[in-house]
Each structure stands twice: as structure tokens, then as C-alpha cells.
């Protein structure tokens, strides 16, 4: 039981940056903008956070710097897409590659250098319940941050006026515009907030989960996983967080699997989340495939297995909005 709790603690830690990045992207996509640049901007903010933390000696300053870098990358996307009308996917993909190369280029002198980390927070008074103690007794602050972010994100999105505006802009920008919401500004704000969370995820990697900077850093590919989890989570923060922990569990199990099969190189297990990503996206979309729908109509008992996983993207996801056109 104690060991199981330790594994769970490992999943909580490995999942923390994934949760943060997924929540950030969920916020951005909820407003209708797809920020495809996650994989690159996360790496760049990981580098910036590590460099800044090394220079100042404070991991929290580093994390703030990482957030600023993540927000800046998202701002480039937001400005070129929302105000200059360029394709979200194209600019996002360019930023992915650009930020990645920029991270390796600017981080060159910090490569393989020792630097500060977040360290561990001990919660006293848990020693009576060994399971809880193993799970939360000595955890990185990023775990606390990620758990708080889930609750905050859900509360903001569904319980506040700001969150309602955010969803309105993503569901029906025209109606929102008609109600006097400044659509483009709201979208830009969603980009910035989401980008800052992605930046925090990058900082969580280089200052806690995979401490240090190098080429490769170890978080390459995580951004793409986070993008897929947003879809898997049906654009709902809590479900997205569950998805993030699921993929973190997969990454952690890779470490154990490698002990079982020592002859297989580690890189092979690191690839495991990616076919899983494709399969989950396939499973999530299966109900919308016409062939499956036909089958369900013909054999009604199949409907029992289809369950209810209501995947509905924000209606205006990926659609540009220009207040001067239409209306």
C-alpha cells in the first residue's frame, strides 16, 4: 500500500506540468483560438525559467520568467491571428519550431549546468496516516500549484462572469459581440493567460520534474500530448486534468516496464504515450464516425457500449472573427 502511494506520488509529480499545460490550452481553446505552439513554447519557457532561476538563485523568479515567455509566445500567435488574420495553425506550427530552436540556441551556455530547483515542501502532521504521508508528505510545490490550478480554472470558467464571457466568445463570437463583449480582446486575454500557464508548465519541467537544462531537455513532445489531452478532456478543465494524470501514469509505467525489459532501449518506452494519444483521439471520435453510427443504428445493443462521453468542441474553435464583417 505504501509503495502504491509512492507510485501515485510519482504520477502526481509527473502529471503536474501536463496538467498546467493542458489547463492553459483549454482556456485558450475555450475562447476559440488553437495555440499549436505548445511543444516549442513550453521548451522555451523551461529554458528561460532555468536560466533566470540560475541567475537570480530563486526558482520562483524563474517560474515567473517562464510564465512571461509562455505568454509572449502566445501573444505573437494572438496578435498575428486575431488582429492580422493569419492562420492559427500555420503561425502556431511556425512558433513550435521557432521556439524550440530558440530554446536550444539561447540555452546553449546553460546546458548541463547545475541550477536551483523548487525542492520539496513537507506537510507535517501526516505521519499518522502513512499513505497520505507518502502521497503528499514531501512533494514539489508544482504539485500544489497544479492541483490549485485545476480548481481555480474550473471555478473561473464556470462560476464567474469572466469565465462566461470566455466561453461565449468561443461558442458564438457574433452573439457575444452583439452582447457588447469585446471578442478580440477577450481572445487575446485567453491567449495570454493560457500561454502563461503553459510557461509555468515549462518551468515546472526544468525546475522540478526534470530539473536542469540540456539538449534534449526531456519534455520534448509533452506539448503535443497536452494538445491531445485537451480534446480527450472535451475542453473541460477537470476532465482534462484526469486525462493528464492518465498520460502521466503511462510515462511513469514506462520506467517500471524498462526495469522488466532491460534489453529494450529507454527511448522506445518514451514513445508509448504517442500511439496512446492517437488511440484515445480515435476512441473519443468513434461515435461521430458514420460507419460506427450506421452500425449502432443497425444493432441497437451496441449503443450500450458507446457510453456518454460528450465531446463537443467550442463551436467557434479555430474560426477567426472580424467584427467589421457580417452582422
Amino acid at each position, binding site marked *: 500500500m505504501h509503495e502504491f502511494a509512492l507510485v501515485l506520488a510519482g504520477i502526481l509529480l509527473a502529471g503536474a506540468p501536463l496538467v498546467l499545460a493542458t489547463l492553459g490550452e483549454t482556456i485558450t481553446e475555450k475562447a476559440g483560438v488553437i495555440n499549436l505552439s505548445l511543444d516549442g513554447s513550453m521548451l522555451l519557457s523551461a529554458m528561460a525559467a532555468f536560466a533566470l532561476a540560475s541567475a537570480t538563485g530563486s526558482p520562483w523568479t524563474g517560474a515567473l520568467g517562464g510564465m512571461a515567455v509562455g505568454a509572449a509566445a502566445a501573444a*505573437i500567435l494572438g496578435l498575428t491571428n486575431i*488582429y492580422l488574420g493569419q492562420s492559427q495553425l500555420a503561425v502556431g506550427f511556425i512558433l513550435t519550431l521557432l521556439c524550440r530552436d530558440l530554446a536550444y540556441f539561447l540555452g546553449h551556455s546553460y546546458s548541463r549546468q547545475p541550477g536551483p530547483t523548487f525542492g520539496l515542501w513537507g506537510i507535517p502532521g501526516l505521519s499518522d496516516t502513512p499513505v497520505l504521508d507518502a502521497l503528499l508528505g514531501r512533494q514539489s510545490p508544482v504539485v500544489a500549484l497544479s492541483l490549485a490550478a485545476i480548481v481555480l480554472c474550473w471555478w473561473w470558467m464556470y462560476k464567474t462572469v469572466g469565465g462566461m464571457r470566455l466561453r461565449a466568445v468561443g461558442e458564438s463570437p457574433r452573439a457575444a459581440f452583439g452582447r457588447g463583449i469585446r471578442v478580440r480582446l477577450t481572445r487575446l486575454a485567453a491567449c495570454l493567460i493560457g500561454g502563461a500557464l503553459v510557461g509555468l508548465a515549462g518551468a515546472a519541467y526544468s525546475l522540478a520534474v526534470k530539473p536542469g537544462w540540456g539538449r534534449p531537455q526531456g519534455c520534448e513532445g509533452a506539448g503535443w500530448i497536452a494538445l491531445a489531452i485537451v480534446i480527450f478532456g472535451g475542453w473541460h478543465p477537470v476532465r482534462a486534468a484526469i486525462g493528464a494524470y492518465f498520460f502521466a501514469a503511462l510515462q511513469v509505467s514506462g520506467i517500471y516496464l524498462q526495469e522488466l525489459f532491460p534489453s*529494450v532501449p529507454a527511448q522506445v518506452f518514451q514513445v508509448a504515450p504517442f500511439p496512446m494519444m*492517437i488511440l484515445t483521439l480515435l476512441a473519443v471520435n468513434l461515435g*461521430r464516425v458514420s460507419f460506427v453510427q450506421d452500425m449502432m443504428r443497425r444493432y441497437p445493443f451496441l449503443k450500450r457500449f458507446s457510453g456518454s462521453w460528450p465531446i463537443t468542441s467550442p463551436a467557434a474553435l479555430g474560426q477567426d472573427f472580424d467584427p467589421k464583417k457580417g452582422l
Partner: protein
Amino acid sequence: MPRSAWLEQTLWMLAAPALALALTVLVALPSGAPPLQTLQVLLLGGLGSMSKFGQVLTVFVPLMLCAAGLLVPFTARLWNIGIEGQVVLGAIFCTGALMPFDQGGPAHIALALAAGMLGGALWALLAGVLKTWGRVHEIFSGLGLNFVAMGLTIWLIFGPWKRPGVASMSGTETLDMSLWLDRMGRLASSWTALALAAAALVMVAVLLTRTQWGLSLKAVGQNPKAARLFDLSPRRRMLQAFALCGALGGLAGAVQVLGVYHRLLPSISSGYGYTALLVGMMASFRILPVPFICLFFAVLNVGSIQLPLQLNLDSSFSGVIQGLMVLSVFATQGLRAWLIRRREGC
């Protein structure tokens, strides 16, 4: 065209490279890189001598093959990000096809090239089927398959295809000389590879602009619903576009194996698939600018090898410049449209 309009057009054309240059200098400064000297090292490193130009051509060929291939799915508005993995699968199939032979001749090389194309096409079809029948966006399936392809290569190199005795990241057993592509005299590049790249571009250009197939592919891209009503079978067209692009990507992988590395390496694709996507975007997926951009990007890639040696900078700087250039093109395009709209006062 009146003279002032012509002047404006020229200025706008210069705006993108100017912005890119400014941003590059801005980015280079914090790393302590002297901007002008860095650019000089980059360009001389790519064009300084004939042998360096030969290196440039070896980069140019896979870039061209991939970029030409990418024009096809993009005509149907498909983002074949999986091209990177298709290059890798091409290399794997090519190496696999030559496994039984200790030595060979042109027939074996042709077989290996064909096997590479088959590998790339199959890997692309996987992404295509996931898109058309499984409703998984091609960006995610393609990307996931890229990582899978990477894992597959490493597994092959360390497992079934490992060199006798040592299994290492340095790759599989080197091919026999008789299975290598020809060389241009002393240069690293090969005439066959260059001819294949040129043929690929011409074929794609003819296919997209001169045939009914190209026209219907365009229709599928612009309005899939209408395309279905007009009986253009969009699904089949999309799959064909994926397969063709994958075949060209696979050919690039096979050329890397037969002409450059002469074995299968873990990083056999060198990121050329992703760079080719940048090329396509910078050309706005028009055919004519593609070879020129490919050549320029190849010069940057080869030149950047000198950066760690001469200036102790990371070689990823070439990627930074490429990214900034494409971003500048998009930014100036958008800025121009925005200014025009403002001037017209609507």
C-alpha cells in the same frame, strides 16, 4: 501598374526579409553572438567552397522532395505533419529491402528506392485513414506517428538490425559501396538524387496545375461537401494525396540512406520534414518559390554546422532564422492587409 504602386509592392516584398533580419539580430544579441560575423560564418559555411556547396545539395535534395510532396496534401488543405515519420519509414524500408544483399548494382538501388517510397506511402496512408475514417486530425496522427517511427528506428538499431557485437546510436552496419548512390565527382551530393528531386517537383507541378486530378483535389480542399455532391470522392482523393506525399517523403529517407549516411541512423530524417513544412508555408504553398527557398534553407543548415566550431554557438541558429523568416512573411502579409483595410476605412 503605376510607378508608386510598383514601388510600394517592392517595399512590401523587402519588408519581410528586413523584419526577419532585424528579429534575428535582436535574438542573437542576448547570447553574445556578434550578429554580422555570425551571418558571415553562416553564409561562408554554406557557400565558401565547392565541397560545402556539395553538402548544401545533399540537404537540398531531401528538403525538395519533402516540400514538393507537401504541396499535394496542402492543395486539399491537409497538414501532413507526419512527413517527418514518413521520411524515417522510407529509410527503414530502404534499409530493410537491402538487408538480404551483401552487394548489388543499379537494380538493387532502384529496388531500395521503391521500397522507401512504399514505406513512406504506407505510413502516410495510416495517418490518412485515421483522418478520413477515424476523424483524428492529421496533425495529431501525423505527429504521433513521427514519434512512433523514431521509436521503431531505435528499436531496430538496438534490436534486430544491430551490428554484430555492438549496438549503438551510431546505427546499423554500413552498406557495401556497390549499393551507394553515385557521387558528383568529389562532392558529397549525387546526380541521381538531384534528378529525383527535380523530377518530383516537375511531376507535382504538372499533376496539380495541368490535370483533372489536381483540379478535383483543389475542389476537395476548398469545399469537401460540394466535392462529395459532385461525386469527386473526397476521401479517396485525400488518401491519394497523403500516399503521394508520403512516397516522396519516403524517397527522401531512402536517398538519405543510400546517398548520405549509407546506413540507418536514429536521427536519419534530420528534421527535414519539419523544415520542408516551413518551406511550404513560406512559399504560401505556391510551386515556383519552393526550390529557391529550399536552396536557401539548405545553405543555412550547412552553414550552421560551423557555428559551434567557430563561434561556440548552438547550430540550432539556422532553425531560428528559418522560423523568423517564415513568421516575418506571415506578419508582413497580415500587416499589409490590415493597413489596406484601414485605408479603405471600413
